[in-house]
């Protein structure tokens, strides 16, 4: 039993070890793991294996506190160890080489492939093989291996300006049809789960590309996880989180197509919450955002309750609130002109 439980695996630290206690002994059975933190001693470059005394202490801890819970394991690798990293949420783990994650069974883990500058995301292997796009979501169960592959971008890319349109609750991406007809000749590809579904299209006057999100990725996975655009009693933070992941995936999907991207978000009604959630998260992709234009209908119920406090935190990114519907080109264009300063022009 003891032999089975002690693997003596080392890491450079975990979220649960105090700063000066960096070596972790993993005590594990087939389904769970407990971390014991030990003083940090090095033998040359290699950390020393904790002595038998410390291992015994760890076993005692396990014996005393062994809970009847199980956890599922996910091993994530960056293939070749270079080109990017994988962010895993919830939990905010960010791997550049390999990671081992323990998660409650049946819970959802979302993996984002994040290429470094000069690289692009190529694809997933392992449990995410066949997943198109930079977002792969898994349900914790049997131990899972995943790897993300990145490749160097061959040619320097031209700077690209784009709008990302986010539809509100009870609506679909088609809510932008009229505006897209007026400004983009009816063409504005949809992004779902970080995958751009269609060919690029841009406004020839501004050279600004158009993309629109189709929310619902998490609805398809877990009926309890999302449904966030529905008007429920959820707090804005809860309802916006999963949709924020969808916005992040969309931005990553666009970066795969246009590495030198600068992006303005246009959110209809409560979709602004999703954008807000993304903007508040500490991600590198956020730096690509010029601003957020939040459209509200004047008759929107409870708008003060929903919007009031949220715009206090914008992660340093300008947020413009506009009373307009998604069809109102003149109003939207004028506001975008102000928000983007130079790159969007009214007709």
């Amino acid at each position: 039993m003891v032999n089975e439980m002690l693997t003596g695996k080392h890491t450079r630290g975990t979220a649960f070890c105090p700063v000066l206690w960096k070596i972790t002994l993993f005590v594990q059975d087939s389904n769970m793991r407990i971390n014991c933190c030990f003083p940090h001693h090095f033998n040359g470059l290699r950390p020393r294996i904790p002595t038998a005394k410390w291992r015994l202490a760890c076993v005692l801890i396990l014996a005393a506190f062994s809970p009847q819970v199980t956890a599922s394991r996910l091993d994530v690798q960056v293939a070749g160890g270079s080109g990017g990293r994988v962010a895993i949420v919830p939990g905010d783990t960010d791997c550049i080489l390999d990671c081992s994650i323990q998660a409650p069974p049946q819970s959802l883990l979302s993996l984002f492939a994040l290429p470094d500058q000069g690289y692009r995301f190529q694809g997933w292997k392992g449990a995410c093989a066949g997943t198109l796009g930079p977002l792969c979501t898994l349900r914790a169960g049997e131990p899972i291996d995943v790897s993300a592959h990145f490749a160097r971008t061959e040619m320097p890319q031209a700077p690209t300006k784009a709008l990302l349109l986010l539809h509100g609750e009870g609506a679909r991406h088609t809510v932008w049809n009229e505006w897209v007809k007026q400004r983009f000749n009816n063409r504005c590809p949809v992004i779902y789960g970080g995958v751009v579904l269609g060919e690029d299209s841009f406004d020839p006057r501004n050279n600004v590309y158009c993309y629109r999100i189709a929310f619902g990725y998490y609805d398809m996975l877990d009926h309890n996880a999302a449904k966030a655009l529905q008007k429920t009693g959820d707090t804005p933070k809860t309802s916006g989180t999963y949709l924020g992941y969808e916005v992040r995936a969309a931005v990553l999907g666009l970066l795969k197509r246009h590495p030198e991207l600068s992006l303005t978000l246009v959110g209809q009604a409560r979709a602004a919450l999703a954008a807000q959630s993304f903007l508040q998260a500490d991600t590198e992709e956020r730096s690509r955002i010029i601003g957020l234009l939040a459209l509200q209908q004047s008759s929107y119920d409870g708008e003060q309750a929903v919007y009031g406090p949220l715009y206090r935190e914008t992660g340093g990114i300008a947020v413009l609130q506009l009373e307009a519907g998604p069809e109102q080109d003149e109003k939207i264009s004028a506001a975008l002109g102000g928000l983007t300063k130079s790159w969007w022009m009214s007709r």
Partner: protein
Amino acid sequence: MVCLLLALIAGVEGWRAYNPALGRDGAGKDSQWTGTYRGKKPGSPPGGKTSGGQAAGNPSAQMNRPMDASAELAGLVSKAKLKKANIAEINRYDQTPAQLWQYWEMLLDRSEFQQIPIVGTLLAERLRKHPDPAVYRGIADLLAQPNIAVENKAILIDLLGEIATPDALDQLISLAKQEIDSPLYILALQALSRIGDNRWDGEFHEELSPALEAAWSNPENNDPAFLGAVGKAIAAVGAPEGVEQLLLTVSGNNKDNDTEETNRIKQEVAFETIPQVRNPEAVEVLGTWLKEEPLGTPPVEVSGNALAEIGSIKATQEIVDWARDAPAEGARNLNDWLSKIDDTSALASISAVQEDEFQAPEIAAVINSVAVTLDAGAALSTTALKKDSAKVLPRP
């Protein structure tokens, strides 16, 4: 002893991290996720410190990988799995509709829901360009199977709405007719009502209109929900023939052999849906009805609203043409319609006609008022818009 105590605390923390009883919502949500990582935390600069205190870009730190044999073995197993996956990898963008359909079915079978809409969109694109009756038959077969879960049938219905071709529409209509007592009925109607919003390839798909019009005029179809969905789809597609049919209905002149009750339902639906027409091809039909029907009748109300919502130069011109001979009582309608037009180039055409003759002085007054406002300040209105409607919200 102190060390043991600290180790104990760490152990308890580790246990709490796994305890599902702590729940998933709220601030403590992330705390149940545990992970070891060899990298930087989000937001840390490239080459910056990891939360473990070591440099992410430090080569010696990166070399510090697990050395034990079991880990190495695990790595080998993992690589073998990856290689297998690599062989199975196919470029989905180059597949035929039949191949994509096969893959889509496999995803449904494996409940890989996150990929289904993506592959469904690829399949829809391919099917539109390369119609394959076998794929449509496959969809129909699955929908007809009693042992397929309703949830999966709902996904199939979504797929039909995404494909949005006449073949897909036929299936939706026949499904709606067959499944009237099933939970799929409402889903089929939803897909049906949205089918006109799907402007794939950047176009209004008028080829969908004949089937919708046939469903609309069939006296057997008398369910209000069905008629509502079909009417909405006809308006969203906006083919001139379809809009004409809706206008005939709203005017009470349609030739369908409907009961009085069905006719009343259809009139209500048509009255609601005609203002949702956006297809520029319908402008002429709308303009004709606007000019030929007496003021105050439903066709005039809905045609004017639809033209104003289309808001193009041509649509605005139709409204202005109507205004020339309109009676004084039409001033309110004219004002309402012009206030809906958002396109400044369309509104600018009004300035050009303010010197023209209008039969009613009240109508001329509305035209003049709009023209004066436009002349006085396109720039002003933009400034006012910025000041009144948009505000940069305070930063923290």
